[in-house]
């Protein structure tokens, strides 16, 4: 038996604790339910040795996890809760393939939950894609919140040849032009509730401001960032030119090349280098002393 097998087994235990239906399937037919997990027959037998109800002893386990997720997805979550059988739809997350893959492959539950909120499960008749749009924004926020701040390299290691690129705590989202305003409007409404964001999200009689359907293409870039030592993640719209510049900076390059790009977009030389320097000062652009090998 390899150590990876014991670890895989323990992850199955977690899945059985969060998903009672999966637990039942394992007891009914371990080989079938676990066909894609590398376990030995003995390990599969171990799984079904305890009383089945032992796996569900902590009845609030998934509720706690869902609470934590809704705290990170208050806007998309508030909209989802207000759908018919909204809470049940949310609780079904723990039965999804995305959740099980997240546990089995050591993934991020927030990322899996964001993807779930963006799925067909949460499409409504009047606003078919609203929850998905809000989930995309909040998934990006959850992502940048999780990026560990890395210290800047020593000043002496930065030269004119040092490439700079988009910092790891920055995400560029391509979204429908109305998404950012709609997100901020919904968030502001939840903040005015008087309770916590979670309480506001779950308070279904509390009315959220109406919106209109997102028609047309996603054409706007949104900057989602969580700059180290800042108060928290922020969401900002961008001009097309800034969006183009930052999109180009996904591939690290010298500051002079970034300035040249800005000039090519119509900036005066001094204006271009100032703009790039501002992005460096704001830690939107980060030095990469060792250029990536392509």
């Amino acid at each position, binding site marked *: *038996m390899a150590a990876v097998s014991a670890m895989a087994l*323990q992850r199955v235990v977690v899945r059985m604790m969060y998903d009672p239906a999966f637990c039942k399937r394992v007891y009914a037919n371990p080989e079938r339910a676990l066909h894609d997990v590398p376990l030995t027959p003995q390990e599969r037998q171990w799984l079904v040795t305890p009383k089945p109800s032992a796996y569900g002893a902590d009845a609030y386990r998934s509720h706690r996890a869902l609470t934590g997720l809704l705290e990170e997805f208050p806007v998309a979550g508030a909209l989802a809760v207000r759908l018919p059988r909204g809470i049940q739809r949310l609780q079904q997350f723990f039965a999804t393939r995305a959740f099980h893959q997240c546990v089995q492959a050591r*993934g*991020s*539950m927030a990322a899996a939950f964001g993807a779930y909120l963006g799925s067909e499960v949460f499409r409504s008749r009047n606003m078919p894609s609203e929850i998905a749009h809000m989930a995309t924004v909040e998934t990006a926020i959850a992502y940048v919140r999780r990026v560990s*701040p890395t210290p800047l390299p020593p000043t002496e290691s930065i030269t004119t040849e040092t490439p700079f690129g988009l910092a790891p705590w920055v995400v560029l989202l391509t979204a429908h032009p109305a998404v950012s305003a709609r997100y901020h409007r919904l968030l502001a409404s939840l903040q005015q509730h008087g309770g916590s964001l979670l309480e506001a999200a779950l308070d279904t009689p509390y009315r959220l401001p109406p919106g209109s359907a997102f028609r047309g293409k996603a054409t706007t870039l949104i900057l989602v960032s969580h700059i180290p030592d800042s108060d928290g993640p922020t969401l900002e719209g961008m001009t097309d030119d800034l969006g183009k510049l930052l999109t180009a900076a996904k591939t690290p390059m010298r500051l002079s090349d970034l300035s040249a790009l800005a000039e090519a977009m119509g900036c005066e030389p001094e204006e271009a280098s100032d703009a790039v320097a501002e992005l460096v000062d704001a830690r939107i652009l980060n030095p990469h002393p060792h250029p990536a090998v392509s």
Partner: protein
Amino acid sequence: MASFAERVHTLPALGLGISTEYGASTAPDALDILALRSAHATYAGFLEVGVEVAKGLDDTAQHWVREGWPATYHFLDVNLDEAEDFDAPWLQAVAEIAEHIQPAWMCGDAGLWHFGRRERGHMLLLPPILCAEAARSQAEGVVRLRDTLGYEVLPENPPGHVYLGDLHILDFYAQVADLADTGLLLDCAHLAIYQRLMGHEPLTGLDGTPLDRVVELHVAGSTPHEHEGFTYWEDDHTPEMLAETWTIFDWLAPKLPNLKAVVFECERNPLHSVLAGFERLTTALEDTVLPPAAGWQP
């Protein structure tokens, strides 16, 4: 590196102590550990600080540390058997907090503290799979942490509702200790819960435990619950201990040549409700190598 048999003699005797974790002291009716230390110094000879690096230390723990009183670092956020869990930012944060606390050693439940990555919402605590390969992985984690941070790392038997594997939990941790050449923290309450769930007598398996490796003991109360015909005990640190917990403690404590510390985990209970437990422990410690208050200072 010297062997554990040699290293253990350099570890200080901490005596009888208490535990805390972030926010525990602000819970309703929580134990005022500073008042306990003031009124009964021998009951609070040291503080075992439960640390999740994302939260850090609360005001009470900070106060204790500022006073320079003895402490141990109890981790709450590392899966010892997952190499990926030892990422650089986490190790750096642990090193900084440990530098601040100046613990006599590090310890903690050697189980699954979170599934997936170390993220909000992923926290839980499950026992490891009780098999030889998992013991090897746990031992590797103990050595990795000890080598990286320079503190002794004592793995602890965790509580649980579901235990899987072909080893008794005491045999599992005996293997971990042997492979990592380390000491052990044996939680008598967790062991009592395990023995009950598995249908064992309280002392089953203790005859194979490497007694010279047990450095620290924990005792705590637990509460029985029932779920669809399954009876289990929640390790909720009430003052009411299972009789088996005392049976285990009374059998073990006098036999441990390297016992350095005993923790009564009762951090969320008012002072008056826990004094009887401390008195009982103080009496029991008279028959051990451990003076109730050793007076070690970091």
